[in-house]
Structures are given as structure tokens and as C-alpha cells.
């Protein structure tokens, strides 16, 4: 008993959490992959400053950012991706949402590379594509990686949203446990602790990674 709360229900319900956590991590994993591919590609193209394409990408980014993520999930689930299994509909909507933020980080990371690097590459006869591939992107990765990791943390927290389409991830699970045990708070506290442990661990890992990257400078 902590502060008058009773956690003995865990003896019987821990596997609810285990299953919920498993689904949450699967959602986060696939979303990370998909969102990174879409977001990085979008950001790289955006960084080239082609007028028309930039306009479209910026429009898309602003559009997605302007809509609450729960509304996005509903629209994808009931509309655009209604043919997809529930899990993949959730991954799709979470990916689109994250990808626009990743795109922004990528664009900023590419554009933060000194302009002289591109000019020097052009001057030895590289095409824009070659210059990006051999010179700009390797330097941009260093700029992008930390914010990409932070995006991953946000994304794990965002997965809780898809409980609204009855996907049995961690947040949905804790509600089931509440219903079964008639306990109001305790199941939520457990959920909160699990989320915190995951995100805090990743945050720490990111810190180590960043120090490694800067050790090279």
C-alpha cells in the first residue's frame, strides 16, 4: 500500500500491461520507421528550395500541424485508410503526423550545413545530387539525429491517442484494468510509470549518443 493505494491487482493483471506495452512498442517502432522515411525524404527535398515543391511541402506540413492528432487518427481510421487493419491505420496516421515534424528537423539540419560546402562540391564538378549525398547529408545527420531521437519520445507518447480507435495498447489497457478492478487511479499510475520509464530511458540514451557525436568535433 502506497498513500492508501492498492497495487495488488497487478498480481492478476500484469499481463494486460505486458500486452499493452508490447503493442505500444510495436506501434512506436513501425511509426518511427515509416515517419522517418517520409519525413527525411520530405525534409531533404524541401531543403533544396525548389519553389513549387517547397510550396506544396510547406502547405502539407502546416496543414497536418494545424489539425489535432486525435482528429487525424479518426480521419485516417474511418476514411482514408478504412480498408487497412486497425494496427496499420494507426501506424499510418501516427506516421503522417510525426513525419511533418521530422521533415522540419531534416530541412533545418540540411540548411544548417555551411553553404560553402555545397559550393566547394559543385566546384569540383559534383552534381547537386552527388554533393548532397557525399557532403551535405553526412554533415546534416549529425544535426538531425538528436531531434530525431526527441521526436521518437514524442511519438511513443502519441501512441496513446490510438486508444480512441480501440487498439489495445498501453493506455487502452489501463482503462480495461480500471473497468475490471473498479480501481480509479492505481491502474493509471502504473501506466504512467511505464511510459515514464520508457521515455526517460530513451532520453538518457540520446544524451549519451549526443556526447559521442560531439566527441568527434
Amino acid at each position, binding site marked *: 500500500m502506497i498513500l492508501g493505494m492498492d497495487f495488488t491487482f497487478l498480481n492478476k493483471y500484469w499481463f494486460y500491461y505486458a500486452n499493452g506495452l508490447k503493442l505500444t512498442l510495436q506501434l512506436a517502432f513501425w511509426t518511427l520507421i515509416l515517419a522517418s522515411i517520409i519525413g527525411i525524404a520530405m525534409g531533404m527535398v524541401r531543403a533544396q528550395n525548389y519553389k513549387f515543391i517547397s510550396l506544396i511541402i510547406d502547405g502539407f506540413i502546416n496543414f497536418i500541424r494545424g489539425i489535432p492528432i486525435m482528429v487525424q487518427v479518426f480521419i485516417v481510421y474511418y476514411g482514408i485508410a478504412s480498408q487497412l487493419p486497425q494496427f496499420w491505420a494507426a501506424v499510418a496516421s501516427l506516421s503522417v503526423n510525426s513525419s511533418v515534424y521530422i521533415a522540419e528537423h531534416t530541412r533545418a539540419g540540411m540548411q544548417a550545413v*555551411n553553404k*560553402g*560546402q555545397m*559550393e*566547394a*562540391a*559543385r*566546384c*569540383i*564538378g*559534383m*552534381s547537386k545530387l*552527388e554533393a548532397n549525398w*557525399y*557532403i551535405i547529408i*553526412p*554533415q546534416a545527420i549529425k544535426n538531425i539525429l538528436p531531434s530525431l531521437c526527441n521526436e521518437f519520445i514524442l511519438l511513443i507518447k502519441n501512441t496513446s491517442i490510438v486508444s480512441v480507435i480501440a487498439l489495445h495498447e498501453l493506455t487502452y489497457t489501463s482503462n480495461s484494468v480500471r473497468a475490471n478492478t473498479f480501481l480509479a487511479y492505481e491502474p493509471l499510475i502504473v501506466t504512467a510509470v511505464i511510459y515514464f520509464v520508457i521515455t526517460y530511458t530513451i532520453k538518457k540514451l540520446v544524451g549519451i549518443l549526443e556526447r559521442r557525436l560531439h566527441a568527434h*568535433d
Partner: protein
Amino acid sequence: MTKEKDVIIQVKGLKKSFGSLEVLKGLDVEIDRGEVVVVIGPSGSGKSTFLRCLNLLESPTAGDILFHGKSILGKGLNLDEYREKFGMVFQLFNLFENLSVLDNVTIGPRKVKKIPKEEAEKQAMGLLKRVGLDNKADAYPSQLSGGQKQRVAIARTLAMEPEVILFDEATSALDPEMVGEVLQIMRQLAEDGMTMVVVTHEMGFAREVGDRLIFMDGGYIVEEGDPKNVIANPQHQRTKNFLSKML
């Protein structure tokens, strides 16, 4: 008897505007093979823009540039192949920060000229030796002094075997004690017969190494001629004013 001239570059009525700002207002220049053309002029006179138009980092607004008698502004020209023929050495070096010194020098030959790695590295080591930095092959740019960076940048340029090298204030960002080592290499290149267009504030270099001096002001070529003559005996008031501040 005069040697027959071999004109590499002809610039005709070259103009360049950025928006409504006209920076180059009609330049006419011919550059011969093996010639060292030194360009001087006050800040903002368009020296860098002129160099950057030569290798098409900027596209001219009007006029024409002929390379071996052919316009480089027409359609159908492969820009990347053209740029390969022009080396450029920048004020701030612009070494590739993600690559070692050796890779900085080999990446052009390997990826652009498709020369095998081993051969490119052998050539690069030779060039690094020539600029006195073969012992730094594995270092990264961030570990080099300004003078060393610029020497690597010159080696990187030479690795592409360009026909012309453009120097845009290659020594302006260097500490005074490092200026000499870079000028020495440029002097050597000139003696070896490299065609060079050199924007500089180093009047000693201009006088001793330059075959021709161009004084630019306000987007025009105000005066040009033999460096020794122009420096000793400038014809235009603007040249006089500028030189009196330089010397």
C-alpha cells in the same frame, strides 16, 4: 617574336544583377593559357561575383562567356563537366568537414572522374606532399590551422586537374604568419604554368606574380594592364585612391 596567344576564356559584356542591384555592369576580359590575372578593387566592387560567374556558381544576367571559343551559357552544356575544368579556392577554405584530408583530395577524382581509389590516393599523396601536408593525410579539417586548410584546399583543386584556378581572397582569412606559405604555393603554381585568376589584397604578389592586373570598381573594370605599370603609375583617379590605401 611573340608567342601565339591561346585564349582560354573570353568574357563579353558580362552583367550580373541580384534583384534590382546591378553588381557587374558589363565586363570584357580575355584570359590566355598560363596567364595569371590579378583582380583588385574595393569591397563590393563585384570581384567575387565576377569569379563566381566564370565557373557559373552565379548565372550571368547578360553578356557571354566563351570557353575555348564556345559559349558556356547556351543550352545543352553539361554544367558539371564545365565546372570540373575550373578549380576554385575560397577565402574560408570550405574543406569538406565530414572527410579526412586525404578524402577531401580524392573525393573529386573518385566520384566525379571515376578514378579507382588506389590510384586517386596515390595522386593525392603526391599533391599533399607538394603542399607540404602528406603527414596530415588522416587528419580532419577541424584539426588543421588556417594555412594548412588552404593548402589542402589547393591540393583538392589540383586533384581535378583543372585548366584554370580561381582564387577568391585565398589569404584574407589567414593569420599573417600563414599568408606566406599559401602565397608560396600559388607562386609555384604560376611558375608551373597554371592559368589563374586571383582576387587578392596582396599587392606584392600582384606585382611579382601577376601577368596582368585588373582594377574593378562599382561593377566596371576601371583599369587594366601590366601590374608593375598600373601599381607604379595608375591612370585613373579611382585606381590612385584605391592603391594609396593599399600600399
